[in-house]
């Protein structure tokens, strides 16, 4: 084989390899045409808001310190998922961005015990972040399952900066209570009386 011919074969090999590992694999991996996406932001037909939370599972001390209240409640009602905007209307792009609109599920709770915080006994409204309305959705990494009739210990946080249509008490943690035992993420199964005493001792 002549030198020039050999060089051309080597070049062909390199070009083929580059083509294979470069441009073709990019298109194969993304499946998207970069030029197809407009640079201007518009409100899409369906929008997902995904929340990625980072941080260690809080200790009980941390939970007591940060919660507005820790209660034991009966779950009376779990409302349909709705946008947390005034009137529960679907936000436009500006509202989505400025008001941090999310889809939430409103809860009606019957307060049975108040471990920390100032909450008037009786019915209480709070909300859980996450849910779907039509093709819109808000997704959280660790969703809390709740259903009417459940007896639960719940930590709520009052988001004073928010003016949501569903109130300002966000559920931060919720533990099922069954047969006098609280099933917590941080400490496993703990007798209700023991965790009540611990929370009371930690409360400011």
């Amino acid at each position, binding site marked *: 084989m002549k030198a020039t011919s050999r060089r051309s*074969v080597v070049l062909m090999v390199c070009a083929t*390899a580059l083509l294979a590992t470069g441009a073709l694999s990019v298109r194969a991996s993304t499946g998207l045409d970069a030029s197809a*996406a407009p*640079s201007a932001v518009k409100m899409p037909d369906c929008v997902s808001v*995904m*929340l990625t939370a980072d941080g*260690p599972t809080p200790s009980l001390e941390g939970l007591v310190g940060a919660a507005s209240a820790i209660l034991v409640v009966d779950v009376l009602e779990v409302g349909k998922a709705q946008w947390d905007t005034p009137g529960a209307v679907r936000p436009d792009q500006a509202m989505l961005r400025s008001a941090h609109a999310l889809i939430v599920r409103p809860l009606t709770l019957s307060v049975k015990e108040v471990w920390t915080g100032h909450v008037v006994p009786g019915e209480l409204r709070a909300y859980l972040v996450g849910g779907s309305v039509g093709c819109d*959705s808000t997704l959280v990494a660790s969703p809390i399952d709740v259903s009417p009739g459940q007896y639960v210990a719940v930590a709520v946080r009052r*988001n004073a900066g928010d003016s949501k249509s569903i109130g300002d008490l*966000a559920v931060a943690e919720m533990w099922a209570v069954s047969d006098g035992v609280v099933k917590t993420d941080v400490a496993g199964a703990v007798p209700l009386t023991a965790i009540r005493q611990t929370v009371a001792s930690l409360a400011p």
Partner: protein
Amino acid sequence: MRRTWLRAFATALAVAGLTAQPLLAWSQLYNAYPNDPQSCTDPGGYCVRWAKTSGNLSTTHYVYLSANLASGNLDLRPDIRNAIGYWNGAPARNPYLVETTSLSQSDIDVYRGDSDSYCGQLNTWACTAIYADTANGSHILYYAGQIYSDQVTWNHSLTYSPGYFVADSRKVTTHEMGHVEALGHTSFTAVMHTGAESFYRPQTNDIQGIQAIYGAYP
């Protein structure tokens, strides 16, 4: 004879290039959520990623840094700017980030979210909100915000603190910007590891993750 061998070699290289996978595995390549039918972890699901990548470097993603990042005990903006530089420097066609002072121009808004509904859950140091267009079967990440909880005292100590209320802002900032790039969590050694790591630049596993999403930059 030799020419035939070279042709075979070229064909093998091409096939290997088309099927090449990163050397390391990662537990969760993209942002993924349980019970999300559009999650990458579900067969046939979509993956969140930026649609316009830096294959053409004239294509940029603008980042707006809110003034409230300088409130409190620490100005977080230098850390975020460093994080942007780290991700821009990765050899991948991932989003090329450029800071802007115009909120209307920005694709990504970064701000402190004290008492914000995003981070209304207590077990949060920081969180990233990703807005994705799910219309027409596509799943295009087009806007994201990065939030810092008021439950955290931010410092510049490289030593990861075991305390709940103290965090190294450099590591967390790079980690959150990794979510903005579309990376999820991993159990491997990486800045996207969910636990304590003594570094705050993207690691090999992180870079392989974004290369897998967007392609390696030649």
